[in-house]
């Protein structure tokens, strides 16, 4: 209630302000607000989508909406004050009353747009005492979404409804002919606060880089139970398959997490308003093997990729009835909208066998050599090798609270600060309980890893495909574990580079000429007791097996 009261107080302040400035000035300001708001909604997604892959990705949607609105409104106000300098002379009572009316309208639109924009900043679900729409434990049925009916939602609804209405006419923000209601239906629900309703009360990611999502397929699924309850009624549904790469993972590439509020299927907007369906169930790899159905019937049920795996393929199930008579047109995942492909017949979702996802195919290039001798599983506490780093001299490395490396890169002198107390010592690349660190000696040498042009003809000839290929180890089930960091030691300097959640590609590796004497160590994290198969270069179309491995990761000692 406090947040809503503050919002109402701000609206009243703006009303009072413009009643004092007079009717004509209030009218000009109101027109500036309307124009700025409409343009802000118009350029909102085209601009913010470009920022999704940057470090500001989690805040891009809020920044662009509010930022464009504020900047444009300031410019328009300066412009109108300069070029419309004169005032209208009307009776004082009318001046104040009409001024207050336009001031009130400006205040409601501005505060409403601000509330919508603030909803698109990564933050906690509940801000102060405001929650709005979220997953709630008192809502029985999946996806368990409900509202606390905060008054601020009404202000947002007025502003959202006004700009949605404008988007039908000459103010349409979508150059492609759509409107807010067809492309971003239920805008106010999303902004307050379903967009932020991620794992751990909003502390997980709320966006993904669009390029991290691939293999999107739409299945027309016949009626099947989509609830964990005994004797659950079969429900016809649309299922969306997608593969999430490590770039879209939480925790600097550790795991992909998604709640039931962070994905939706949007109808074709027939009749002017797109209908919306939130997922009630999903299917994914189970830790113990095979695939299983899980259900969004509780706020604590969160779609989670298998620990340490570098990518995951998931199937979300949306009840058909939620879309009414509309056909699915868009699939929205963590605020990023994808065009839904043409639906195809569903595979056997009721069974437990893995479904052919159409992901990249394994290719054995025929010259793979065994690299078991180049692999070790060090204690992650002392896993960098070659250098002891004081956390006070970490440079651009990003550390977690226990001094494990989670991002950044830095060069250190080979034997710089040998005397470092245990508390201050920078550890290896971060692993969590149940995981092991695999350290691979990837120095360029005969009988070494075949990822360099001198040792692999495909790398030499494939050009951009090879340079952007990601380096991963795969297990016998085909699950990939991407390199999370590298340490290059040239004898004098040690370069420590964490990928910070982005898988290592060949172009990230400094040139390693044969016989240069440089040592290159690649670090992978994988679940303990994983049975390994080999080292692959993965291009998205294929996984090229360049070396074989016949080792099993040891048990976790933690």
């Amino acid at each position, binding site marked *: 209630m406090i947040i809503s009261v503050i919002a109402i107080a*701000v609206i009243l302040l*703006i009303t009072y*302000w413009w009643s004092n400035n*007079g009717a*004509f*000035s209030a009218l*000009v*300001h109101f027109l500036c607000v309307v124009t700025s708001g409409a343009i802000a909604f118009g350029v909102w997604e085209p601009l913010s989508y470009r920022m999704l892959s940057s470090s500001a990705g*989690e*805040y891009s949607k*809020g*920044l662009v909406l*509010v930022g464009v609105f*504020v900047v444009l*409104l*300031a410019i328009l*106000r300066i412009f109108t*004050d300069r070029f*419309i*300098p*004169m*005032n*209208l*002379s009307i009776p004082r009572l009318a001046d104040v009353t009409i001024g207050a009316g336009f001031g009130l309208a*400006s*205040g409601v639109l*501005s*505060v409403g*747009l*601000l509330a919508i924009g*603030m909803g698109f*900043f*990564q*933050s906690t679900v509940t801000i102060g005492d405001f929650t709005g729409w979220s997953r709630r434990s008192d809502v029985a049925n999946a996806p368990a979404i409900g509202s606390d009916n905060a008054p601020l939602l009404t202000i947002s609804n007025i502003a959202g409804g006004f700009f949605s209405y404008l988007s039908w006419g000459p103010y349409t923000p979508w150059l492609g002919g759509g409107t807010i209601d067809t492309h971003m239906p239920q805008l106010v629900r999303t902004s307050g606060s379903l967009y932020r309703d991620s*794992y751990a009360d*909003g*502390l*997980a990611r709320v966006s993904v880089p669009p390029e991290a999502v691939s293999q999107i397929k739409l299945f027309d699924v016949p009626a099947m139970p989509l609830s*964990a309850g005994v004797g659950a009624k079969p429900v016809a549904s649309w299922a969306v398959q997608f593969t999430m790469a490590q770039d879209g993972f*939480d925790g*600097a590439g*550790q*795991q992909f*997490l998604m709640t039931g509020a962070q994905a939706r299927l949007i109808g074709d907007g027939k009749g002017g308003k797109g209908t919306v369906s939130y997922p009630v169930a999903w299917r*994914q790899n*189970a830790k113990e093997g095979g695939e*299983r*159905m*899980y*259900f969004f019937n509780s706020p604590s*049920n*969160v779609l*989670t990729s*298998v*620990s340490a795996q570098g990518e995951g393929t998931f199937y979300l199930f949306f009840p058909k009835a939620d879309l009414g008579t509309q056909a699915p047109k868009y699939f929205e995942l963590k605020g990023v909208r994808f065009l839904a492909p043409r639906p195809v017949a569903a595979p056997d979702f009721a069974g437990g066998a893995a479904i052919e996802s159409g992901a990249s195919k394994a290719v054995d290039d025929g010259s793979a050599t065994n690299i078991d001798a180049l692999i070790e599983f060090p204690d992650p506490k002392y896993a960098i090798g070659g250098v002891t780093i004081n956390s006070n001299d970490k440079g651009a490395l990003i550390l*977690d609270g226990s001094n494990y490396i*989670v991002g950044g890169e830095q060069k250190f002198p080979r034997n710089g600060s040998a005397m470092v107390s245990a508390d201050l010592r920078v550890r290896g690349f971060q692993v*969590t*309980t149940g*995981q092991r660190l695999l350290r691979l000696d990837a120095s360029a040498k005969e009988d070494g890893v075949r990822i360099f042009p001198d040792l692999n003809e495909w790398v030499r000839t494939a050009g951009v495909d090879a340079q952007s290929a990601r380096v991963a180890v795969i297990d016998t089930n085909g699950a990939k574990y991407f390199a999370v960091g590298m340490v290059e030691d040239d004898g004098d300097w040690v370069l420590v580079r964490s990928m910070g959640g982005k898988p290592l590609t060949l172009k990230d590796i400094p040139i390693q000429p044969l016989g240069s004497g440089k040592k290159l160590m690649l670090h992978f994290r994988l679940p303990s007791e994983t049975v390994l198969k080999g080292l692959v270069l993965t291009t998205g179309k294929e996984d090229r097996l360049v070396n074989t491995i016949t080792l099993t990761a040891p048990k976790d000692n933690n």
Partner: protein
Amino acid sequence: MKNNMIKLPQTASIDGAARKTRALPCGRSMRWNIGSAVILASITCGATYAMQAADPTIPPQPDKGLNLYSPVGGYALMAIAAAAVIAVNLMPAKRGHQD
């Protein structure tokens, strides 16, 4: 000196009829009964945990120690955005009168 101790009935004794009546039918001591209750509770808890662990509808759980975001950045941006919107709405109009 006044004796504040509660006087027990003449008939009360450690193995009197009342004590025997309140004892459980098995006739064991109270200590044994508490012990058995604790063991039974432990078995129940263990069985429940095992059932939950084996429950196929419980999805994979996020790793412990996952690096999540701090909400401070979002709060700061919200405060800045709110201040900017209020400030730009309260820019005074520098408009003179027509007459």
